[in-house]
């Protein structure tokens, strides 16, 4: 067995470079492709659009990186986002009479979103780490639960934020600082903090240890349950943050909000080089993964070279190709 790991170790030098470069190369290739297809691709407006849109999935995917690194999975994030958005909108609408439309209303809304996300994450985390149910099942279940609660809250339709409140809140998506839109700033902040947490803090280490070998983590005095729980709670909070950025964009939420976000977030994490079975995670890789996924969509819209029916196929091929570049890393898993 020494050999095993040994061989891997031997390859590692070479692999790490490819493992690291793979997604980055894919990203660069996409940027070049985009720029050559359309001169507006690198325009300020387009770049801002793509980055700002990536922010929701991106913020969630950063949290997902921790969950997956610690050997878990969360399928509920998309519907959790819809639910959090719905609750936030309803709460804000309900608070207008008391708080009026203003900063305090927005702050209260944000607090509601964070608390709801936190609680949702806590419930997932509790069922997984304390009750001990397989994460896949818990989050598959809660995915259905949040999705249908949202539809129910919206009475099958759309929950919309009061028009005045929305106009007041809108700049949180569309404005920014020094010409950089808020969602981009928040995403960057979350990514940087996430990267630091993963690489520089005991929490990040513990996540990786837990995902690599739970027994070893336990024998090393890591509070396994607590760390696992924390990953889900963190993810829930980040879903809350993503929602705070999402609601001012269109001011509404419905049962179809956030459909398939979970898959996109997980895909971004894996494309970024995090190991699906846990034990190794890379936040900046996730950011690259998110950007790759957003760019593919953007380029397909900008290019219109093929039948739109085939967009999905092209997406699929590019995703696979992006990962082929890092296939040398296979043995690491």
């Amino acid at each position, binding site marked *: 067995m020494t050999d095993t790991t040994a061989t891997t170790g031997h390859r590692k030098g070479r692999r790490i470079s490819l493992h690291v470069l793979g997604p980055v190369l894919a990203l660069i290739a996409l940027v070049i492709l985009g720029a050559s297809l359309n001169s507006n691709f690198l325009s300020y407006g387009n770049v801002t*659009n793509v980055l700002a*849109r990536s922010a929701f999935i991106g913020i969630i995917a950063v949290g997902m990186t921790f969950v997956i690194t610690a050997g878990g999975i969360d399928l509920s994030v998309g519907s959790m986002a819809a639910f959090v958005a719905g609750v936030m909108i309803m709460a804000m609408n309900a608070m207008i009479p008391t708080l009026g439309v203003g900063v305090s209303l927005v702050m209260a809304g944000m607090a509601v979103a964070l608390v709801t996300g936190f609680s949702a994450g806590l419930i997932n985390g509790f069922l997984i780490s304390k009750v001990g149910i397989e994460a896949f099942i818990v989050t598959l279940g809660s995915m259905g639960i949040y999705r249908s609660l949202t539809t129910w809250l919206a009475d*099958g*339709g759309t929950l919309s934020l009061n028009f005045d409140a929305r106009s007041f809140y809108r700049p949180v998506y569309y404005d920014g600082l020094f010409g950089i839109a808020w969602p981009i700033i928040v995403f960057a902040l979350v990514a940087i903090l996430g990267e630091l947490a993963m690489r520089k803090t005991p929490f990040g280490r513990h996540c990786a240890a837990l995902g690599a070998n739970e027994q070893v983590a336990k024998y090393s005095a890591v509070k396994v349950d607590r760390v696992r729980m924390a990953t889900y709670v963190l993810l829930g909070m980040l879903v809350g943050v993503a929602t705070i950025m999402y609601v001012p964009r269109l001011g509404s939420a419905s*049962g179809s909000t956030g459909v398939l976000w979970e898959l996109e977030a997980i895909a971004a994490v894996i494309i970024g080089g995090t190991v699906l079975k846990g034990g190794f995670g890379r936040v900046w890789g996730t950011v690259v993964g998110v950007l790759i996924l957003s760019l593919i969509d*953007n380029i397909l819209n*900008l290019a219109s070279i093929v039948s*739109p029916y085939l967009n999905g196929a092209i997406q699929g091929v590019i995703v696979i190709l992006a990962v082929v570049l890092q296939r040398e890393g296979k043995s690491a898993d």
Partner: protein
Amino acid sequence: QDESYTIGVAIPSATHGFMGGLNYHARAAIERLEATYPQLEFVLATAGDAAKMVNDIEDMVATRDIDALVVLPFESEPLTSPVQAVKEQGVWVTVVDRGLSVEGIEDLYVAGDNTGFGRVAGEYFAETLGEGDNIVVLRGIPTTLDNERVDAFNAAIEGSGINVLDMQHGNWNRDDAFNVMQDFLSKYDDIDAVWAADDDMAVGVLEAIDQAGRSGDMWVVGGAGMKEIIQRMMDGDPMLPVNVTYPPAQIATAIELTALGLVSATPVAGRFIIGSQRITPENAEQYYFPDSPF
């Protein structure tokens, strides 16, 4: 008299605004009818795909002994044989909106007018725009229904010289439409009008245009008369000159007619096509239903 009936209602689940409205109207109609006719019982099932809808219908027949079925086929083809089988067991069949692929199965057909939906919009474009004007189109989820609408739209603008720059799927979804429209705006400097083919998508499109600061450059035609959009039209929003009806309330009509047929001797069989109307700021008030979720 004291004979009781069970009516099964099978509709697609509320995955986008229009279907949300449809679900709302279905439930509202059922509540109303249950209150009025105590001898009526309803089974409502919503399905996310064709196979699930067939399952639901099978369950209604096998376990609930339904006397009538109101179905809005998720897709026409796959539902045809199962509904036919239901019909053969002597159950009254009402088909809503999307026809079955074999004629003459249903007793009652209540539908919106998909061809009309595309045509009415297209006609407005042809009237208003001319040679060399540029438009972009956001399509729905790839389905036969979407094809019908787009084909009719294309037919209506044919010969007008309007230049369709691009068509992409916005999947009847606000977020998708927002993204697609953002990209259209990056890609094309000169867009005169947008056909968003659905008011959910129109919401996303308007937001994207607003963000790009190009509100003055183009107008948008959505469809199906969502209340927020109608409200904006009533307020005279220049970006929303017209809308086209495609009432989600048709399901209520269908359920009510079916119920009526069971509890009374009223002959209700036949075809009711609810044509697509053009909504203008002037007549918008007629189409405004503030209580509907859509």
